[in-house]
């Protein structure tokens, strides 16, 4: 394969890298005044990169033609699906940011820092590489590019101690996770003699030695850290609460998609011949995430913290699709990811619209009491997102649970599915508490401020997707997810 073909395959990443470098220079000379134009340009670059994905996504891509740079990267339908989702989430994170940084709560005098969109861009490049990695080296490169930009993003409010604390915690724990992952990779390299996914897979056939098993477990643990699955979830509530809200919205969507895609690729393409070795681990993580994500959320007062636990809970359901260990499960997982991203973006957009007269942001249960009287549109949208997250039909969140559980039961894991779905009722408790506070309680009357057009657009779009009308999307969504999942298994 010549380099021209490889470059053609990674054109979206090239666009993003180029745009990131140019905008970095603009930011260096233009200063924070240029923040808003840079954000628009970054969103445009992400959109262009997304457009470049469409033809291949539509026709489907698999086989050797998708390998780039001698097998270091693999741009198949699976990677394309994940990338499209990542870019959309990144655009949303850019759209909701300026209004947040202008608010007095952010404590910045000059509004959004010009670095914010640039960091989002570089992070997106990293996530793209993660999604299409087919070698442990590219995997680590992508992961670290994403992680390093994320640490900075978490701490971007330099005068806010909570933000700094979030950045530091994220950095220390993230570095630990990277170390665990790296150690696992080195073990696998030592026992199989390669870093390419195909080489490691070939070395893992037949009876697996204890050393290789440790490698598998360390790699999975490192990845579990990145997707914040229980028992490696401890950093999530603190980081989500401390980080600026648009950054939290970003963390709970795009990097989650990338890390889940990466995990799926590793377990299927690398450990695909050793399902017995990892299936129980993933099943445990799935159940534990569902249960602890739900229990942890119950006592929370802060809405961001609550959504952090909610994301842990959702990761549990996503892992359910992974635990099934077949193409149906992978497809269900991708459908779940899409719907989860829509619900998360919508919830965070709504959270950012909880503003006082002077633009102060509110983020606790006490503040949203009686929201349905004072701001009915936001309250109804939040009601939809919460019931959707709880998986109550006819909202689209039900469909995401539907596909995942269907795959679980069809694969014969009936008891596992029954326990998981029973545990999901615990989660419903705090989602309906949201509705109770907004609809049943007397108004607190602090949320009176107006919100910008960008927020309304995002809220409207995501609410439309989550509404029953979103079911009309399901045939094409399922089609794309099936193609993506098939490409993941075709390689094996």
């Amino acid at each position: 394969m010549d380099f021209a073909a490889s470059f053609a395959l990674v054109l979206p990443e090239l666009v993003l890298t180029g745009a990131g470098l140019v905008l970095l220079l603009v930011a260096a000379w233009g200063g924070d005044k240029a923040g808003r134009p840079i954000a628009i340009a970054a969103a445009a670059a992400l959109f262009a990169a997304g457009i470049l994905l469409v033809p291949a996504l539509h026709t489907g891509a698999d086989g050797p033609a998708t390998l780039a740079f001698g097998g270091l990267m693999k741009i198949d339908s699976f990677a394309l699906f994940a990338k499209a989702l990542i870019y959309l989430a990144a655009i949303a994170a850019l759209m909701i940011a300026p209004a947040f940084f202008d608010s007095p709560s952010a404590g910045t005098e000059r509004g959004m820092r010009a670095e914010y969109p640039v960091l989002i861009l570089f992070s997106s490049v990293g996530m793209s590489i993660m999604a299409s990695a087919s070698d442990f080296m590219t995997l680590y490169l992508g992961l670290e590019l994403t992680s390093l930009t994320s640490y900075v993003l978490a701490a971007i409010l330099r005068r806010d101690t909570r933000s700094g604390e979030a950045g530091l915690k994220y950095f220390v724990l993230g570095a630990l996770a990277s170390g665990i992952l790296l150690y696992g990779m080195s073990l696998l390299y030592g026992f199989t003699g390669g870093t390419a996914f195909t080489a490691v897979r070939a070395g893992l056939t037949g009876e697996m030695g204890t050393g290789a098993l440790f490698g598998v477990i360390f790699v999975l643990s490192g990845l579990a850290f990145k997707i914040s699955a229980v028992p490696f979830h401890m950093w999530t509530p603190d980081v989500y609460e401390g980080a600026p809200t648009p950054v939290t919205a970003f963390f709970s969507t795009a990097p989650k998609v990338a890390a889940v895609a990466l995990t799926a690729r590793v377990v299927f393409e690398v450990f695909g011949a050793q399902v017995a070795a990892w299936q129980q681990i993933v099943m445990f993580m799935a159940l534990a995430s569902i249960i602890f994500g739900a229990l942890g959320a119950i006592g929370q007062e802060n809405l961001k913290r609550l959504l952090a636990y909610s994301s842990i809970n959702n990761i549990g359901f996503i892992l359910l699709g992974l635990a099934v260990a077949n193409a149906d499960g992978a497809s269900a997982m991708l459908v779940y990811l899409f719907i989860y991203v829509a619900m998360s973006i919508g919830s965070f957009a709504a959270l950012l619209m909880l503003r006082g007269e002077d633009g102060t942001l509110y983020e606790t249960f006490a503040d949203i009491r009686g929201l349905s009287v004072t701001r009915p549109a936001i309250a109804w949208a939040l009601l939809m997102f919460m019931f959707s997250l709880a998986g109550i039909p006819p909202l689209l969140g039900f469909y995401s649970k539907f596909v995942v559980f269907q795959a679980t039961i069809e694969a014969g894991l009936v008891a596992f599915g029954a326990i998981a779905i029973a545990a999901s009722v615990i989660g419903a408790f705090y989602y309906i508490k949201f509705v109770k506070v907004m609809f049943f309680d007397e108004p607190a009357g602090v949320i009176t401020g107006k919100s910008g057009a960008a927020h309304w657009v995002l809220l409207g779009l995501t609410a439309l997707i989550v509404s029953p009308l979103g079911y009309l999307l399901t045939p094409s969504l399922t089609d794309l997810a099936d193609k993506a999942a098939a490409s993941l298994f075709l390689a094996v």
Partner: protein
Amino acid sequence: MEGLPILSLMMLVPLAGAVACLFSGASAARWIALGATLVTFVLGVMLWSNYQIGGPQWQFTERAALFAGFSWALGIDGIALMLIMLSVFLMPICILASWDSVTKRVGEYMAAFLFMEVLMIGTFAAQDLFLFYVFFEAGLIPMYLIIGVWGGDNRIYASYKFFLYTLFGSVLMLIAMFWMVAAAGTSDIPTLMQYGFPASAQTWLWLAFFASFAVKVPMWPLHTWLPDAHVQAPTAGSVILAGVLLKLGGYGFIRFSLPMFPEASAEWAWLVFALSMIAVVYTSLVALVQSDMKKLIAYSSVAHMAIVTVGLFAFNVQGLEGAMIVMLSHGLVSGALFLCVGVIYDRLHTREIARYGGLAINMPYYALFFLLFTMASIGLPGTSGFVGEFLALAGIYQTSSLVALVSTTGIILGAAYMLYLYRRVAFGGQVNEDAAAMSDISAREWAMMAPIAAAVLWMGVYPESFLAPMRADIAALDARLSAAAPVGDARLAPGAPREHAANAMEHHEGSETSSAKEGAH
């Protein structure tokens, strides 16, 4: 009528009304809601009049592959038709019942009710297993809001309890549905009703469905959400809960548990009988000591629904027909009783029985209606309650005389608590000044009560109108169940029939015409 998707239309009208209500002011919302429910009712009447008795089992079928994983498949048989009629009949009455009593957030309230109507029609008309589940489960959202926003003092607790109880019951059913669809390869309900699942799997599937329907019906000991939800809900909310939502459980048994898992149904019938017998006796006794009118009627609902489950699991035609009629009758009667409570609650703002008394003196028309519905609840011949309870108990007698014996005490106890309630509210002296000053029912309340009273009498005097559309479907169900039906203990031995009627007169050859004349006298 050919080609007109009348079922979809019946769901579209209230849906459009719901959206319109959300965006309109209080008085406009009331009129929109009333208009939408009346139009839906008219469509329902058209549905009934175009339903061919003795025609194909599934009529008005619609199919559209709109979604991935399941399809938009609608269609009804006689059983679904009757329950849809019950829903669309009660709906305008619910709107009227809330006309003056609901004053805050009227638009949202009416929208919630109309949305509820869409879901109820959808639940009864769904022909796809997952579509059924979507409609079945989605009802939680509007009902949660109705109880929580417009309910009484303890509404938050009641709304949580209602939501979590019913959700927990339903999710296990969903797992069972996935298993069934994976095994049978289709989610089409008519096909699944004929599909033979292996007996070992049926046990688990039946239990999973039972978890959901037993909560919805509700059966003792899973009934505790019901008194809370009923008491705290606004009047119209109670009417819908008692009138239609409880029927979802019974409908689930008759549509899913019995035809899809006949062997497991026979195997677990003892459980249903045991729980029903406890429910009949226990909740009737609990009803006897209530001092809150709504709570009393709520507990009586549990007792009546236990007669339904007993009839359903009798595995014969009388039992099934009786159960269906009890469901329809209970939908009307308990709805009407809640309306009766609502009428005086609107005037005095208390449900405490002791605060009333002697209402027959100052509210004679009210007392008349209340008496009629009380008698229908007891099961007086001539009212709908009698027909249903008689058939259901006759059915169960063939299967188990012990269950019949215990269940029949429910009628006696029912008479006790209902007459005791009526005596304290309507008869006796006017002990309370303010209760004595209440005015009789208004024209709006007449419009709510009179149609239900007419329907109760119609069903009591000529139940054939309601039984005829269901006859073929119940016969089909009975045929499906007959292989699995347990041996009854009634030991019905057909004796030698008499040669003559018991009152035949001795007569001689040749005088036949004169004796025939005498007999005619």
